[in-house]
């Protein structure tokens, strides 16, 4: 029974790992099945899954928005002088 559990029931740690793995590569059918079974039973991991997806979107936009207003504009006159003196 224990052996069976180990093989077919994912721990939450493993399940959340698979969720991240899935974002990078395809899962095997067995991994997909185990993950599906786990998330349909485990409320906490279902919340994690939503938040992980949300975090993905937040990070993607955070790194890719060249939205000037988010960035504090900093003047660096020293740097400008150095660049000019290099030419």
């Amino acid at each position, binding site marked *: 029974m224990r052996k069976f559990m180990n093989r077919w029931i994912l721990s939450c740690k493993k399940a959340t790992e698979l969720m991240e793995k899935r974002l990078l590569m395809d899962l095997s059918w067995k991994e997909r099945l185990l993950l599906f079974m786990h998330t349909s039973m485990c409320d906490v991991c279902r919340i994690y899954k939503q938040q992980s997806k949300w975090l993905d979107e937040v*990070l993607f936009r955070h790194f890719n928005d060249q939205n000037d207003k988010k960035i504090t504009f900093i003047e660096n006159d020293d740097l400008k002088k150095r660049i000019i003196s290099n030419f």
Partner: protein
Amino acid sequence: MYADNLYSWALFKTSSKETAEDLVQETFMAAFQNFGKFKGESNSKTWLFAILNNKISDYHRNHYCNPTIAERKQSESWKDVSNDVFFDSIGQWREDQRPFDWPLGAEEYLDNDEFNRVLLHCMGKLPANWCSALQLKYLEEKKGEIICQELDLSPTNFWQILHRAKLQLRKCLEINWFKS
């Protein structure tokens, strides 16, 4: 000249004053040397930003491969404990670490300066090379396999780093934003 715009952007992306200055200088040098290739199809600001963004990616790539010793120590010490913080010995969520439900909606948060500040703060708490891995993942939306090759990392290591980084970030946002 767009030196200040470039500098602000580089500083935002690398969180290091010296690095940002170096990258901007290199950008201008590269632009000067390759001026012949610039055909005026795009405006010069776009062109300079394209060069700078390449340099930023290179920086994160090298930074990942050669983290300074202090950083390496830091990330190794995290390796030992990071998972235990969230999961118990049989891999179940620890009682006090279970995610609780948040109101979601990326749009509204990202327009909020305070939220962006908390996000930066939380990313600053990650080991630098994890942060680099995150940047490479999201900056160019590259396929995982390509990043792994570039970082000379097995795919398993790479998604495990992302997994840990996201667990930490999630927790940090929960504490500093959603609970306060």
